[in-house]
C-alpha cells in the first residue's frame, strides 16, 4: 500500500473540449506579489499570450504525492512535472515530494495544515476518502481546497485465461458455487479502493471472497497470472500487457459506461469491447479520483492559476497519449461541479465502507 501502483490513461469524452469559463475574477490582486513576479509573468506572457493570470507562483511549488515512489499517483505526478518542465508551462520549478505515511494520511495532513500556502498542491487517489474512514486520522476533502479533477482511474475485473469464466455473470455464479471465502481476490492495499470494490461486489451479488492485499498493482497482476489468486480488479494499465500476452482475461469494467477506446488491444478486442459490470449483471460502479487539491484559505486567483495550468497540461499530446495508454476516464471538473462530485463520492465510500465494516469506530 505504500507503493500503490495505479496508472490510468485516457479516452475521449465530451469533456475534452472545455470552455474557458471566467468564473473567477482575474483582477490584479496583491500588489507585492504582482511586483515580485513581474519577470516571471513577463516570461509567461511571452510564451503563452492567453495566460494573463493575476497570480503566479513566486517560488518553487511543492507537489505532494500521498503515496510511495513508483505507484500510479507518483507516476502521474512525475508525468505532470515532466510536461510542465518540457513545455515551460510554469516559470517556477515544480518539485514532487512523496509523503506516503499512514496510507497517505501524512501527505493530506501536511496540506491540511498549510493554510494560505499557494505553493503546495497535492494529487489524490481514493485514499482521500478511505484513509480517514479506515484509520480514523482526521482529515477530509473539505479541509482542503479542491482545484480540479484531472481524470478518473478505471477498474476492470480480471481472471486468468485458464479460468473457465467468460463473463462477470459466470464469475459471480462460480464464486457462489465455490462457497464462502473460496475465491481469492487480490488487490492493492487494505481497506482501499480494490478492497472496497471487492466489498461492493460481495454486497451486490451476495458472495464472499477472501481478499488478499498486496503492495502494488503489478504484483497483483503477476499473482493472478501465476494462479495464486482467482481474480483481481486491476487498473487497465497494470494488467494490459498480460491481457495482450494472453495470460489474463478482462470480464467487465466498473465505470458507468464502456471505455470509448475502440482501437484493438488484444486478440482483436478493444477496451470498448469490455462490457460494463452493470450490463453484465453485476451492479457495481467505481472509479478512482485523480484530482488536485490545495491547502485551505487560498484565494480564487491562486485556484484559477492552477486550474488554468492543468487545462494546459491536459492539452498536451504527452498527456493525451498517457491517458489513452492507461484507458483513463478523462472527465475534467472544477469549481462547484467538482465539489458536488466529491460530496457524492464521499457518501459512496462511507456507505460502502460502513456496510463492509471497514470504518474505524
Amino acid at each position: 500500500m505504500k507503493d500503490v501502483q495505479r496508472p490510468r490513461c485516457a479516452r475521449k469524452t465530451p469533456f475534452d473540449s472545455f470552455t474557458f469559463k471566467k468564473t473567477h475574477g482575474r483582477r490584479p490582486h496583491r500588489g507585492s506579489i504582482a511586483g515580485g513576479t513581474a519577470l516571471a509573468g513577463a516570461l509567461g506572457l511571452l510564451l503563452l499570450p492567453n495566460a494573463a493570470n493575476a497570480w503566479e507562483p513566486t517560488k518553487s511549488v511543492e507537489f505532494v504525492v500521498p503515496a510511495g515512489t513508483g505507484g500510479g499517483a507518483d507516476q502521474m505526478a512525475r508525468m505532470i512535472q515532466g510536461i510542465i518542465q518540457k513545455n515551460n508551462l510554469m516559470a517556477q520549478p515544480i518539485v514532487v515530494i512523496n509523503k506516503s505515511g499512514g496510507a497517505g494520511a501524512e501527505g493530506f495532513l501536511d496540506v491540511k495544515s498549510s493554510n494560505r500556502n499557494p505553493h503546495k498542491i497535492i494529487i489524490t487517489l481514493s485514499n482521500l476518502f478511505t484513509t480517514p474512514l479506515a484509520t480514523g486520522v482526521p482529515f477530509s476533502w473539505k479541509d482542503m481546497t479542491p482545484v480540479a479533477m484531472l481524470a478518473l482511474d478505471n477498474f476492470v475485473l480480471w481472471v486468468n485465461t485458464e479460468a473457465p469464466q467468460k463473463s462477470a455473470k459466470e464469475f459471480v455464479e462460480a464464486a457462489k458455487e465455490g462457497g464462502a471465502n473460496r475465491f481469492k481476490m487480490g488487490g492493492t492495499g487494505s481497506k482501499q479502493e480494490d478492497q472496497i470494490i471487492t466489498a461492493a461486489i460481495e454486497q451486490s451479488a451476495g458472495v464472499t471472497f477472501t481478499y488478499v492485499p498486496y503492495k502494488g498493482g503489478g504484483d497483483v497482476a503477476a499473482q493472478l497470472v501465476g494462479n495464486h489468486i482467482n481474480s483481481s480488479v486491476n487498473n487497465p494499465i497494470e494488467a494490459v500487457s498480460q491481457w495482450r500476452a494472453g495470460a489474463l482475461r478482462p470480464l467487465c469494467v466498473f465505470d458507468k459506461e464502456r471505455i470509448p477506446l475502440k482501437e484493438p488491444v488484444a486478440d482483436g478486442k478493444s477496451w470498448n469491447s469490455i462490457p460494463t459490470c452493470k450490463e453484465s449483471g453485476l451492479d457495481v460502479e467505481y472509479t478512482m479520483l485523480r484530482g488536485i487539491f490545495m491547502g485551505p484559505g487560498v484565494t480564487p486567483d491562486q485556484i484559477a492559476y492552477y486550474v488554468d495550468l492543468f487545462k494546459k497540461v491536459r492539452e498536451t499530446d504527452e498527456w493525451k497519449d498517457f491517458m489513452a495508454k492507461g484507458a483513463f476516464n478523462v472527465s475534467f471538473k472544477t469549481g462547484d461541479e467538482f465539489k458536488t462530485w466529491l460530496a457524492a463520492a464521499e457518501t459512496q465510500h462511507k456507505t460502502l465502507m460502513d456496510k463492509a465494516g471497514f470504518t474505524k469506530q
Partner: protein
Amino acid sequence: MEALGSLIHGFGVLADPMNIAYMFIGITLGVLIGVLPGLGGANGVAILLPLTFSMSPTSAIIMLSCIYWGALFGGAITSVLFNIPGEPWSVATTFDGHPMAQKGHAGEALTAAFTSSFFGAFVAVLLITFLAPVIAGFALRFGPAEFFAVQLLTFCSFVGMGSESPFKVLSAMMLGFALAAVGLDSVTGELRMTFGSVELLRGFDFLIAVIGLFGIGEILLTMEEGLAFKGKSAKINAKVVWETWKSLPRYWVTAIRGSIVGCWMGITPGGATPASFMSYGLAKRFSRNRQNFGNGEVEGVVAPETAAHAAGTSALLPMLTLGIPGSPTAAVLLGGLLIWGLQPGPLLFVEQKEFVWGLIASMYLGNIAGLIVVLTTVPVFASILRIPFSIIAPVIVVICAVGAYTVHNAFLDIVMMLVFGVVGYVFKKLSYPLAPLVLALVLGDMAESSFRQAMLVSQGDLAIFWSNPLVGGIVTLALAMLFWPLISTLLRKRQSRQDGGTHAIPVK
C-alpha cells in the same frame, strides 16, 4: 544464439555517442547518490525521471539504469571508510569492510568491494541475456507462501552464527521487529503503535535507523577513543588495486555463491538488501576463516557485494518481463517505462527489441564503465581518512543529517537518526549485535505481510508452507540452516565423545 544476435544489435544502439555520454553521466551521478546516505537509488532516479522526458526511451533508461549501477557501486564507499552504509544493501559490507579500513586496508577493502560488485553484476547480466524467458516463468510461481519461505531462509541463514550470546541476538532482533511494526498495518489497513502521533505514521525507516546506528554510533565511539580515525596509514597509491586483484581469485567460491544468492533474490524478487545479508551469513557459516569474520576479512566484503549487485541487476528482469519491480529503484524505473510510453510485460521483449537489448547492452558497458570510474577513485577516497577527524567528523554528521532528512523530507527523522546513534553506541558498549536489529527492521515488514497473506490464502492452515516442492524445499532448507549449528555440534559430540566447543544457536 538468437540472444547473441540481439545483444550485438543492442551494442549497435549504444554506439550512439550521446548514449555513451549519458552512460558516464549516469554512472557518475549514481556514485555520488550512492555515497550520500539517505539519497538512495530510488530517490535519485525519481528526482531525475522528469528530466528524461524529452530523451528517447532508450537513452533515458540507459542513463537512469546507469545511475542505479553507480549507486550500487557507490554505496560501498562510505560503508568501508566511515561505517556509514550509503545504501541499505551495503549494510553487510560494513561488518568487515570497516574493520579492514581501521586496520589500514581501506584501499584493499574498496577494491575488493568494487570488483565483487562488478563480478556479481556480470553474472546477473549473463543470466538476463540468455535465460530471461525461462526465469520470468519461474518468478510467476512465487505466491505469498514462497515469498515468506525466502524471507525465512534469509533470517535463518543469518541468525545464530554470531559469537554474541543468543539472548542478546534475540533481544536485538525483537527490537527490530517491534520497530518494523510501527505505522500502517498493510493487511488490516489500520494504524499500529502510532499513539496518535502524525510523525509516527511513517513508521521507522530502515535507512534512518541505519544512518544513526552505524554512522552516528561510530562517530560517538571514535570520539570516545581519541578523536582520530584508525587506519589513516592506508596505502593510497594505485598499486593497491593490482595487489588486491591478485588475492581475489582465492575467494571464487564465495563470489559464485554470492552471485547465485543475489540472482535468486533479485528475480524472486526479494531485493538486494536481503540478498547481501543472506550471502554474508552463508559465507560466514561456510568459510574456513569464520572466526575472523567481523574483524576485517576480505571474504566478508566479497560476499555481500557480489550478492547485492547481482540482485540489483537481476531485479530488472521481473520488471521488464512481468511488470513486477524487484527493488524500490526498479519500481521507479517501471514508472518511467510507462511515462515514456512503453508497456512493461511479456511482450516488451518482442515489441521493443531495440529498447530492451539496448538496455541489456548498457548493463555490460555500464558496469565496465562503473568499475573503471570507481577503481580510479579508490586512492582518492582512501586518502579521505588522512583528513583530521575534527574536520571530517562534523562534515559526516551534516551529510548524515541531510541524508536522513531526504528520505521523507521530515525534520523528526534527523532527531530519530541522533537517537538511533545513541542506541548504536550503547549497543556497541554492551556488545549487543546491531545486525539482527537491522535485518529484522528491513525484513520484518515484508516477512509479516507475506506470512499473513499466505495465512489468508490458506485460511490459516500452516500446511501451505509444504504444499508444493518449491515452498517445502525452501522452508526445509531454512529450518536446516537454523538448526545446523546444533545438529553439527551433536554430530561431532557423538563422533568424538568430546565437548564440541561450538556455541548454541538461538531458536526462535
